C-alpha cells in the first residue's frame, strides 16, 4: 500500500499511475525507468522501499561465501563504488532503487557490503535492497572475537538498527539469526 505522503508526492510529480503499477509488482519498463532517473531521489527511493515492503517484507538476507554466488533468486548489483571519480553515494542509491523497481518482485535485490562499505550498504536497505552479500573474513579482528564473528555481529547490528530482521544464508540453507545459539 502506498502511504498518504508518498501518494501525494507521486501525484504531484505525475507519477501516481506508474507508482501503482510498481506496487502491483508489474515491473517497470524502459521509459518508466528513464522517467524515474530524473525524478526526486527520495520519491524514487520511497517507491522502491514501498515495493520492497509489500513484496519482500522486512527480512534482510545476508549472504556470504558460496551462498552469495549461487543464490538463484538474488539480483546481485555490481556497483562501480569506491573510486574517488566513480559514482557518488547518491547516484549509487538511485541505481539500487531503480533496480528494485525494474526487477521482478520474486527476486531479492542485493548489494555487496564490501563494495559499498557498511554505511552505504545499510542505507541501501532503505532504498529498496533486501539482501547484503560479501566476504566476512576481510576485516580487522576484535580482541575477544574472531574476525568473522565480529564482522557478522557488526552487520547484523546494522540491519537490526535499520528496523529489519536478519536471515543469514550460508551454503544452501537459510538460517534465521534468532534461531542461532
Amino acid at each position, binding site marked *: 500500500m502506498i502511504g498518504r505522503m508518498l501518494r501525494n508526492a507521486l501525484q504531484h510529480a505525475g507519477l501516481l499511475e506508474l507508482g501503482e503499477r510498481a506496487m502491483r509488482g508489474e515491473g517497470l519498463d524502459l521509459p518508466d525507468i528513464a522517467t524515474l532517473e530524473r525524478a526526486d531521489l527520495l520519491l524514487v527511493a520511497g517507491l522502491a522501499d514501498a515495493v520492497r515492503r509489500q513484496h519482500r517484507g522486512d527480512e534482510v538476507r545476508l549472504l556470504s561465501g558460496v551462498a552469495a554466488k549461487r543464490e538463484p533468486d538474488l539480483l546481485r548489483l555490481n556497483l562501480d563504488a569506491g573510486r574517488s571519480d566513480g559514482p557518488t*553515494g547518491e547516484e549509487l542509491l538511485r541505481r539500487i532503487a531503480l533496480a528494485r523497481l525494474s526487477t521482478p518482485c520474486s527476486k531479492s535485490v542485493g548489494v555487496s557490503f564490501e563494495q559499498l562499505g557498511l554505511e552505504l550498504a545499510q542505507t541501501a536497505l532503505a532504498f529498496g535492497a533486501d539482501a547484503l552479500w560479501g566476504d566476512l573474513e576481510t576485516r580487522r579482528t576484535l580482541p575477544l572475537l574472531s574476525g568473522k564473528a565480529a564482522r557478522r555481529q557488526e552487520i547484523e547490528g546494522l540491519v537490526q538498527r535499520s*528496523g529489519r530482521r536478519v536471515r543469514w544464508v550460508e551454503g544452501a540453507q537459510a538460517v534465521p539469526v534468532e534461531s542461532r545459539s
Partner: protein
Amino acid sequence: MSRFEAIAEKIRTGEAPSFEDGLALYLEPDLLRLGQLANELRERKHGDRTYFNVNMRLEVTNVCGASCSFCAFAKLEEGAPGARTMTHEQAWQELASHPDAKLTELHMVNGLHPDLPFEWYEDLLRGFKRVRPGVHLKCFTAVEIHFFAEKFAMTHAQVLSRLRAAGLGSLPGGGAEILHPEVRARIAPDKADGDQYLAVHRAAHALGMKTNCTMLYGHIETFEHRVDHLLRLRALQADTGGFQCFIPLAFHNENNSLQKLPEPTAVDDLRTIAVSRLLLDNIPHIKAYWVSMGVDTAQIALRFGADDLDGTIVHETIYHSAGSKVPMGMTREQLVRLIREAGRVPVERDTEYGVIEELPRAHVPEAAMKVRERNAERRNLSVFSR
C-alpha cells in the same frame, strides 16, 4: 490523520514542535518519509542551494585539563606522550602557508591548557590577523570561553570582548556534547555544563556575534536526551536569533574510553539530520559535516534536511584521533562535484553565510539526456552481475 502527519502539519504551519513530537520523529520507522518532510522544509528555506566554504582547521594545543570520555584528541598534561603546544610562530606559519588564496576562514579549537595566560591567546589572534587579515577567525568553543572566564576571573562578555578586539570573528559550535546533565555528568564532568555552554552563546549573541551549535550523538545518550538538547538550542535561538548553523556530530569510538560502544550508523546519521532540521526550524542552516559522517552519507544527507557540507578543512585531527577514515581534507572541486551530483546548486559562502560565488547546477543538455535514456536499459543491465 496519523501522528506523523499531524506533526508534519504542525511543522508546515510553523507551529513549535513539542518534546513528544521530537521523540515521535526520532522513533518514526519510515526513514524516507522523515527525510522527505525534512527535505521539504530544507527546500522551502534554501531551495537547491547548498553551502560550503574554503576553510582550514587548526588545533594549537591538545593539552587539556578536562577528561571527557569520548575524546581521543586531548592529552592531560604538557610533556605527556603525544602532547603538543605550538608556538605562536608555528601557528601563524600554518595559516600563512595555507596554499589556497581563496581561504576565508580559520576554525581553531584547543584543549583547556592549564598554564597559558590569557594574553597568549590575544597575541595569537592578533598574529593571525597580521598574517592574513582577510581570513575570518572562528575560534574557541563555548567551553574554552567559559574556561577562560573562570580561570582569569572575567565574565563571558569580558572574555569575548577582549578576544574580539584581538580579531575573533565568531564562535564555532563545539563543546555542546549532550546538554542534559544526566549524560553530561558522565561523559564530560569537568568542563562547562549545559547551562554554561548556552550562557556563553547567549553572551556572544548579545554582543552581536554569530555562533554555531552542535550535538555529539550516538554514545550513551537516549533519544529523549537528544530531543531535550535540540529543544534547549531552539529555545535560546528563539530568544537571541544568533545561531547560524547546527551541526550534529557523530560519535567515533577509537582511542577513547568509550571504545566498547558501537558508533552511530548511517541510518542514525540521516535520521538525526532530518530530526534536527525539523525541530530547529528557527536555525537557518543544518550542516552535514563530512568529517563526522563520511563523504557518502554527508552527500545523501543533502536530501534529508542538510544544506551545508562544511569546507575544505585541509587538516583535521580531532575526529581522526578517534578513528575517522575520511580524508584529512577535500578540494573545492570535490565539494562542488558532490553537491552538483546531488542535484543541488553549490554556493561558496563566507563564515557568516555571505555568498562568495553561486556556481551553476550540473547541466545535463537535452541531447545528453536522450542518449542517457537510450542507454538506460543497457546501463541498468550493466550494473547486474551475470
